[in-house]
């Protein structure tokens, strides 16, 4: 067994079109060795096409894919040395669990006894030690996904690709598996490229997230920066909860109606006008006047919705319309929210004032 070393992935100018549809539109992306990178986007955004191009199942029209310093664009899938996990698990139902996990080893000419040892070790890693003799149809959904994982990593690939591996699981199990997958990534020395349409999943697991839309990468960032500093309206809208208000931008300052907005964040360039993105939990409810340093979004309480862990207040702003504010339930009790029809002070601090272009340039 050789020392395992995770690999970098360098994608440059990758293009793929199906008729008039650009599934991949000049995509460039550098993934560091050992990174957990998530391709996040709505269905049809091109994220799966990109993953399939990495796997070798989609032949790009142009561009380059390099693993480490090897060009991969013409390499067939079975010679790319990848582990891959599918949404449908794609386990072989006529083989036992152990036979499934040993399949990549068998192809690589590993001896029968080694196959057995390594398959069992991989199964132990995913907490399925002793399940080797089970049949696939005797497993639950979560167990099947673990077997698929074990099979994808048993031959110690330097890169593992995952195509929405958790989306067939129920919510509770999915959240549990997210934490486990993240922990597993720390144990394995492998670069992971993960595809999902679930923004929460992406935020939970990733080192960095690449937001994909219309075959292009809108932004690549760490989860926190992506959430706090989106570069486009699409990213801001797709990640997290928000409402947006049209603003005018001139000479580096944004105006909401008549009022100049104070913002510490850079305003990204783009086309189609700009919008102020307001995240409901980033607004501060102020009992008195809004401080001078913050942007004043005060209005009248339109409705109050109790949601267990938090209270959602829908505020009717004087000029811009409705704004949602989320207040943690315990804090709502402390400050004593105004009731329906009463005035409510809302402060949006400059460090939370996100202004994005409608379309990225």
């Amino acid at each position, binding site marked *: 067994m050789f020392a395992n070393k995770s690999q970098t992935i360098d994608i440059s100018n990758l293009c793929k079109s199906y008729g008039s549809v650009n599934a991949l539109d000049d995509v460039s992306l550098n993934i560091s060795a050992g990174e957990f990178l998530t391709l996040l986007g709505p269905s049809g955004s091109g994220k799966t096409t990109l993953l399939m191009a990495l796997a070798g199942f989609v032949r790009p029209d142009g561009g380059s894919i390099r693993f480490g310093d090897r060009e991969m664009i013409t390499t067939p899938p079975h010679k790319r040395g*990848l582990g891959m996990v599918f949404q449908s698990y794609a386990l072989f139902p006529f083989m036992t669990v152990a036979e499934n996990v040993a399949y990549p080893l068998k*192809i690589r000419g590993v001896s029968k006894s080694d196959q057995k040892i390594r398959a069992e070790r991989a199964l132990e890693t995913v907490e399925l030690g002793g399940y080797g003799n089970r049949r696939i149809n005797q497993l639950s959904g979560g167990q099947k996904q673990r077997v698929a994982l074990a099979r994808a990593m048993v031959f110690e690939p330097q890169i593992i690709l995952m195509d929405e591996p958790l989306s067939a699981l129920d919510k509770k199990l999915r959240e549990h598996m997210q934490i486990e997958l993240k922990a597993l990534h720390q144990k394995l020395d492998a670069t992971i490229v993960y595809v999902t349409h679930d923004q929460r999943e992406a935020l939970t697991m990733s080192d960095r997230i690449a937001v994909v839309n219309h075959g292009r990468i809108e932004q690549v960032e760490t989860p926190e920066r992506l959430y706090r500093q989106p570069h486009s309206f699409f990213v801001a809208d797709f990640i997290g909860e928000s409402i947006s208000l049209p603003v005018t931008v001139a000479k580096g300052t944004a105006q909401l109606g008549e009022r100049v907005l104070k913002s510490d964040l850079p305003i990204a360039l783009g086309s189609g006008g700009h919008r102020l993105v307001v995240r409901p939990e980033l607004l501060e409810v102020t009992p008195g006047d809004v401080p001078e340093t913050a942007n004043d979004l005060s209005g009248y309480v339109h409705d109050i919705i109790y949601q267990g862990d938090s209270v959602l207040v829908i505020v009717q702003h004087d000029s811009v319309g409705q704004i949602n504010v989320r207040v943690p339930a315990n804090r709502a009790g402390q400050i004593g929210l105004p009731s329906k029809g009463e005035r409510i002070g809302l402060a949006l601090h400059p460090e939370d004032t996100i202004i994005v272009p409608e379309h990225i340039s």
Partner: protein
Amino acid sequence: MEQVGQRKIDGMWLTVVGFAVLFFLILPTLIVIPISFGGGDFLEFPPNSFSLRWYESYFSSIEWMSATKISLIVAVMTTAIATPLGALCAYGLHCSTPRIRNTAQAFVIMPLVVPVILTAVGVFSLYAKLGLNYTLTGIVIAHTAIALPFVIVTVMSGLQNYDFDQELAARSLGASRAFALWTITVPQVKFSIQTGAFLAFVTSLDEVVISMLVSGGENATITRRMFNSMRDHLDPTIAAISTCLIAVSIGALICVRFLGSRGEVNE
């Protein structure tokens, strides 16, 4: 209560009609069996006496035996060619884009839709130029053409119930496409392939119209000889042969069922 009773009567009617249809479907097939065991000189039902003389007449006739041999050779060769060809065609269509798939499917299914007599006349005129009439090669090619759609249709429907990601998974795990196809996909659509093979075999064995025109001389198939024999002198040997053909078909069906029930995994 009345409604439940009414429903019971409705159910009974359905059963009766169902069995009646079933009965009329297989009756013509079954009636030749007692006829073949008759002792008289003509086709008669019910037979007046029991005898195996028509089987003896069939099995002792060099002509009948050689025709039977030709038919079996043609059927086996047709199956051997049409099955892998049709299965690969189905696989190819399954993997291609919907537009190509639908267009190609229309062509592939053509032999099923076009009246056989047209195909037969076409094949005959073409073979006349190529010198393939009355040859074993010619009849096998023609039978393969009409057997192919059966294989393609059954295998394609089998592939539709198969999770194709499995083959992609195998390939990403290090298997070449051919190896993944052979070790992962084929075992799981085995039953469809066997069914397709069975249909190809039976299609060839039972085929009359093309055989009438294209086969002949020493390469005449059993169906062609049976037709000629019926025209010249009708005797119960035909019934004995028919019974044997039915037995072969049912035997092949049982083989497929038996093989298919082993190792087939349905999730």
